[in-house]
């Protein structure tokens, strides 16, 4: 099952490589990639990813992307941890 991840990437050397490398390394195919400029410092990357096997969690991937510096995740898998927090709050 493919899923869309949308992130803001600082226009810094290596940032795009970090994101794409992480996605492949953590067990996902990259089926699509679109890169557009937002402003002088920032680009928007829309990435379509698909897990290589069913054990790969897209929620975990999202959180691993969040750990990178120079990127901001705008849209993507909601985190399971966040769901738990919501359950607790509800």
């Amino acid at each position, binding site marked *: 099952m493919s899923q869309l991840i949308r992130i803001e990437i600082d226009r810094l050397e290596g940032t795009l490589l970090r994101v794409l490398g992480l996605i492949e390394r953590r067990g996902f195919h990259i089926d699509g990639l679109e890169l557009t400029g937002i402003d002088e410092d920032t680009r928007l990357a829309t990435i379509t990813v698909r897990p290589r096997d069913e054990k790969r969690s897209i929620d975990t991937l999202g959180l691993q992307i969040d750990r990178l510096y120079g990127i901001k995740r705008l849209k993507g898998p909601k985190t399971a*941890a966040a769901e*738990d927090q919501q359950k607790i709050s509800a």
Partner: protein
Amino acid sequence: MSTNKPTGAQLVISTLKALGVDVLFGYPGGAIMPIYDALAGSGLRHILVRHEQGASFAADAYARATGRVGVCMATSGPGATNLVTGIANAYMDSVPMVCITGQVGTSLLGTDGFQEVDLIGMTLPIVKHSWLVRDPAQIPSVIARAFAIAKEGRPGPVIVDIPKDVAASFVEVSDMGELPAYVPPAPDMKAIAAAASMIENAKKPLFYIGGGVHMAEADQELRDLVARTGIPVVSTLKGIGTISTYEDLYLGMLGMHGTRAANIAVNEADLLIAIGARFDDRATGKLSAFAPNAKIVHFDIDPAEINKTRRADVAVIGDLKIALPALNPKIGDLSEWVKFNKDNKWQHRFKYDAPGKGIYAPALLKSLSEKAGEKFIVACDVGQHQMWVAQHCEFTQNRAHLTSGGSGAMGYGLPAGMGAKLALPDHHVVTVSGDGSFMMNIQEMATLRRYGIPLKIVLLDNSSLGLVRQWQELFYEENYSEIDLSDNPDFVEVAKAFGISAFRITLRHEVEGAIDRLLAADGPTLLHVLIDPRENVWPLVPPGASNTEMMEERWDESIDSY
């Protein structure tokens, strides 16, 4: 060209000093020459290692022993690639480290210049962050940011790669700038309340603690939590020392070479409270059979660890130093569960009355740790001796068990001991190594000699790659492949040639006297211990098996479930 302006290289040194660095480990070379030029006479203490891998391991251990950022330095190309094993090691075990590397000049970048490698590219999977600095004016702010990133949240290694011309050029502006203050994420109090409620409803709760506790400097908070709840504790390899090994409720390490009591407890528990641990495969064994009866509460600062391999029923994300004191469950009667675990601990305690006159390494290591006492810090290499240290040494202090956990990097022990001894000179720092591992960074004995670092070394020599041999014996039908090291050099003579005192023991009755002599020695000293190559590490969970299927040392050495 005004000489009043600093160079990029001078800014590197002045920034390191401003950040409070007191020692760094490195090795000069072509592309980093401007930085070494600025280093000379700067007052910054630099330890010249004899291989860059030694620099990265020493910086790693300095960081583990102190909680401060470790710093290493190397030139471009082979200098930088020699750091890589140490960077991976720091990444796997979440150690705060900053590596400053020289790089070929910017005009040569991408041209296959002499000693050019794309260090940033090749280390992307094993760094927390990295920079190639193109503007010398940014050097102070980048290095300051590197230190902050290395240390904040879940720590890790950071690289600052500086091209030669950037280091050599004069700079107009030179200021670290203001760093945004780091505030550790505060845990959600509702999640903590939910965790407390699960603990209150559990009949067989168990703490499963990892290296994250001491990294959060929450050791005392954890000890207090254990004291006020009375819940038993198992530890990962990296968590060893967080709870005193003498603590009644402490059941030992879990996992592949864990204690039987710890693995039984995990199997029986109805609630596993993971604290700064990441459900690593060596700890869990067969994941589907791990803690099969337990719900999971997971405390961690890194949200990406929650649900990564085992789904948590409640997650508490944030600083353990805040979260643990806030956890105040009303505990019911756990006496039956506690008794069950204490009985197991007693019944399956390690025995040290091995037959024969040869030296029994587990007994030696236990005695070493007891004699060294509260000031004991051990830096392990990787293999059987590493597991024996984890199983048999007594620890009362955190940050005392320095071991290459996630990475399992042979060659760590000697440079790590060096880094730890320089950081904490009043401690009994002992490197425990094997004859395979020791040869991987044996050159660092020259560094011990040069700086007079009084590190003590226990070299357990079974003339083979013992852990590989053990697996070949047990799981590859005794097909021994490339594990024989019986043509090792005479390690006592080698040590003496480096200017290190050394002596050898071969019989059991020599052990106590040798440990006393080693700990009392003034300078760097090596104790060479000959042990039986047939000795194995027990108990052992076979690969792919559940943690309850532990193999024990028996006459028939058969697998049995408890």
